[in-house]
């Protein structure tokens, strides 16, 4: 397959997949098989691009000329390559997980779920391989709209409200700021093509660059910089596979990926590094990553806690990019992959706990580790990776981020990164500790749990069931869920040993080596 064809197929395969998924609505097994097949095909297609991109080729493809001088164009480059590999690879795992979760949970409208999922992945691929800002914007909006039905999947009042927040924030920031910034860039630079070194380099002066940077950073709502992070916790009403793949990987990473892209290819790291007042972005990111960690500690609902953790981790990536140093960019790019594996594992575990034990609140999870040891072990691995301890992938990305901060002579951010790691420990490990070491008091906690979260879907279990779990020894989630968790936690470990590959891939855009 020629690289150009592979680019087109990476968008097309999920779309073709939707057709067959919809056609097989009556046959769940066939439908899920199609999803898996589609995901695998997509991953192989993306993988086939890797050798060329590593070798320094930049295959590109113009899909159509949308407006004079403004085509919808695709182009494979290292950062997008990495993101595409992560997203498409994890889609396979998530599809396996979804089968277990959606059936185990008895969800409605499963066909719509799989269709929207595939469309969202197609949009994600479009974002990964976007050759210019317009293409990126188009797929960015497509991703927002295609994930809306997933967020509001349950169709009740709670998800309707969450959907409003989700759509309201994402659409208003993207139309209000991002589109404006894109148009302004087009007027100033006369092009929107992603060009190494930045298209704004030398074409605009300080204040304009500063204002544009502001518009871009707060226009990319998916990057969840505070104060526009509210949509992410709101999106947690969605079924867990959605939270796992989309709101820990595809959607949020699309946001920070866009941030990195904009900084590297629109502004150019040199332009930003020479700016005097560019510090504010680093500070906003630093503020977000600390504050979100602190908020995460206060949340009792596991998924909400993970969501705030994601908000915090996204800001690592923005912080790395805003440092505008080569090592910082590498750290950011790497963290996209590392955090993806870590966080998806955590969400898988949260979903597994919901399916198997029907618990959503952390305070209900005392002693649950002894009933679901595998799940809690996976949770431990994911947590350690997010915290950044060797031998797990997260260690490398934090290492590079800190190197980047040191390279930029901003030691204060090194300190902030360290503090945040400690906060990570404080909000993630207690979950594991409760699971393994706290004594289970099923009666009291079953009732208490109901009082805490009457609205959450998982809390529907009766106290009787809880007792059953406590007495019945090991009771894990469906096998599909376990396989998925095993794969992603193994991924966390493997990434520690293969981190060098990622550095090699990203080196050209970061200008190191």
């Amino acid at each position: 397959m020629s690289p150009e064809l592979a680019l087109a197929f990476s968008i097309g395969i999920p779309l073709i997949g939707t057709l067959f998924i919809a056609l097989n609505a009556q046959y769940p097994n066939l439908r899920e098989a199609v999803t898996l097949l589609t995901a695998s095909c997509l991953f192989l297609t993306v993988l086939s691009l890797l050798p060329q991109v590593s070798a320094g080729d930049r295959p590109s493809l113009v899909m159509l000329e949308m407006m004079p001088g403004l085509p919808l164009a695709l182009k494979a480059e290292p950062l997008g390559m990495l993101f595409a590999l992560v997203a498409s690879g994890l889609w396979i795992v998530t599809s396996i997980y979804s089968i277990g979760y959606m059936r185990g949970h008895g969800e409605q409208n499963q066909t719509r779920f799989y269709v929207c999922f595939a469309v969202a992945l197609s949009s994600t691929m479009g974002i990964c391989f976007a050759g210019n800002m317009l293409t990126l914007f188009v797929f960015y909006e497509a991703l927002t709209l295609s994930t809306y039905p997933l967020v509001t999947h349950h169709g009740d009042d709670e998800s309707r409200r969450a959907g409003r927040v989700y759509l309201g924030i994402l659409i208003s920031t993207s139309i209000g700021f991002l589109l404006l910034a894109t148009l302004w860039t087009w007027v100033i630079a006369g092009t929107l093509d992603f060009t190494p070194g930045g298209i704004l380099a030398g074409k605009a002066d300080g204040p304009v660059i500063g204002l544009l940077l502001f518009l871009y950073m707060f226009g990319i709502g998916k990057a969840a910089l505070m104060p526009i992070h509210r949509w992410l916790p709101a999106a947690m009403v969605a079924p867990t596979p959605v939270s796992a793949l989309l709101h820990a990987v595809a959607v949020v990473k699309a946001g920070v990926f866009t941030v990195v892209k904009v900084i590297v290819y629109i502004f150019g790291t040199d332009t930003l590094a020479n700016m005097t007042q560019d510090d504010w972005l680093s500070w906003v990111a630093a503020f977000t990553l600390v504050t979100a960690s602190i908020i995460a500690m206060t949340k009792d609902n596991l998924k909400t806690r993970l969501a705030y953790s994601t908000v915090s981790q996204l800001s690592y990536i923005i912080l790395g990019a805003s440092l505008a140093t080569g090592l910082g960019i590498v750290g950011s790019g790497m963290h996209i992959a590392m955090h993806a594996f870590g966080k998806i594992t955590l969400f898988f575990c949260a979903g597994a706990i919901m399916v198997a034990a029907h618990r959503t609140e952390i305070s209900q999870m005392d002693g649950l580790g002894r009933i679901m040891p595998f799940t809690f072990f996976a949770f431990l691995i994911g947590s350690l990776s997010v915290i950044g301890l060797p031998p797990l992938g997260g260690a490398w990305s934090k290492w590079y981020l800190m190197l980047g901060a040191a390279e930029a002579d901003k030691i204060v951010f090194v300190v902030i990164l360290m503090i945040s790691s400690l906060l990570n420990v404080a909000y993630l490990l207690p979950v594991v500790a409760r699971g393994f070491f706290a004594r289970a008091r099923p009666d009291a906690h079953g009732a208490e749990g109901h009082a805490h979260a009457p609205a959450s879907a998982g809390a529907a279990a009766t106290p009787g069931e809880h007792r059953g779990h406590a007495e019945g020894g090991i009771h894990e989630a469906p096998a599909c869920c376990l396989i998925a968790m095993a794969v992603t936690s193994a991924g966390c470990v493997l990434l520690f040993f293969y981190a060098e590959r990622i550095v090699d891939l990203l080196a050209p855009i970061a200008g190191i080596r």
Partner: protein
Amino acid sequence: MIAAHLPALQVVVPLILAPACMLVRLRDAAWGVALAASWASLAIAWLLLQQVLASGPISYHLGNWAPPIGIEYRVDELSAFVLLIVSGIGAVVMPFARESVRAEFGTRRVYMFYTCYLLCLTGLLGIAITGDAFNLFVFLEISSLSSYVLIAMGRNRRALTASYQYLVMGTIGATFYVIGIGLLYAETGTLNMADLASRIAEQPGSRSIGVAFGFIVIGLSLKLALFPLHLWLPNAYTYAPSMVSAFLAATATKVALYALLRMVYTVFESDLTLGLVPMYAMFLGLALFAMFAASTVAIFQNNLKRMLAYSSVAQIGYMILGLSYINVTGLTATIVHMFNHAMIKGGMFLALGCCMYRLGSVHIRDLAGLGRTMPLTAAALVAGGLGLIGVPLTAGFISKWYLVLGAIERGWWPVAVLIMLSSLLAVAYVWRMVEAMYFTPPPETVPEGMDTRLSMLIPTWVLIGASLYFGVQTELTVGVARDAATALLGMPR
């Protein structure tokens, strides 16, 4: 031979077939005649556009009387484009009309309905094609009188008062226009637009011409429902039969806007620099008001047809906004949006027509659960709504892109920001509709069966499909609009 007479045929075909409708009297035969006339008009408009693109503007002398004495039909890119919009919408809504009209209008004297429709089509096409200022008035009145009748045919008795209100305001608008033309004639002694332009250029700063300009602008603004002269529009579109709402919403205001563009840029062009600049500040202010006020009102409407009507007033604001920039990009945005909005709004009104046919109501309460009971119609409403917001890959995005681009080129930052903000109001009213359709359970009394008749769904989706297609393929729309805009501003290609 026939090709040379296409400009005349464009108007004559529907004009002759209108009484023919009346003569055949049979319901379906009248419909057939109207359908044939609409499709023939579309074919002629398409051929004219091709001719114009290939070999420049066409000047057709009616009855071989040379202008400026005789009436001239003049087809350039802009008028050919508007002809295409009008006849295209006409051709698409006609197949829809058959069932819809039978359901909403009953079976008595249906042929009269088609007669009026064809007259309205004639008038609208005539406005777009004529190069004579007074002839334009005649066509304006042909289209207006027939549209008063069409609106009055709505089932609700409020259609009558809506039509009456429109009649009074429309007549005042048309009379203002005639006063303006009269003053121009007194001052220049000609009615031919090209001739008028050159003679106005010879008398810079004439006060009579300034007054004439004012009368003409206000008269046409009434016709195109420029805020705050839009009062007739919401009621008229709400209570008219579905097919009429779709047809008029997509064409009538666009054609009046065309007339305004023609007058402002072709006839008074040379006066742009001579003290009339405040006029553009006025356009700018009113356009912004329209965008915000009308969109805000739209959010609170429970009758969806009324909601779309207010949305139309807001969208007209966008078009006027582009006009106020006085640069090529702004005018391109105006002209492109005329086309794109026609597709989007026409499609959405047709979708509401489907609801009216199946459920007998377009109240937001009665559309509960439409996503289940009429999935295709609901999807059409959503796709159209996304177009109104200006989401990428819909035609609305293209319009908005050029509109903002024009503002930035002009250096009008606040305007660019305001355009973005007003899009968010569109999100609010569109999402209100989406939530009603997808998040509330359908009532139990919905008739059995899937969606509605194909003869109604297909036209709806043709327009909605066009609005999506022209969101990615802009060669025709933006290409022609840009050429037309450069020509209007008198700039070299």
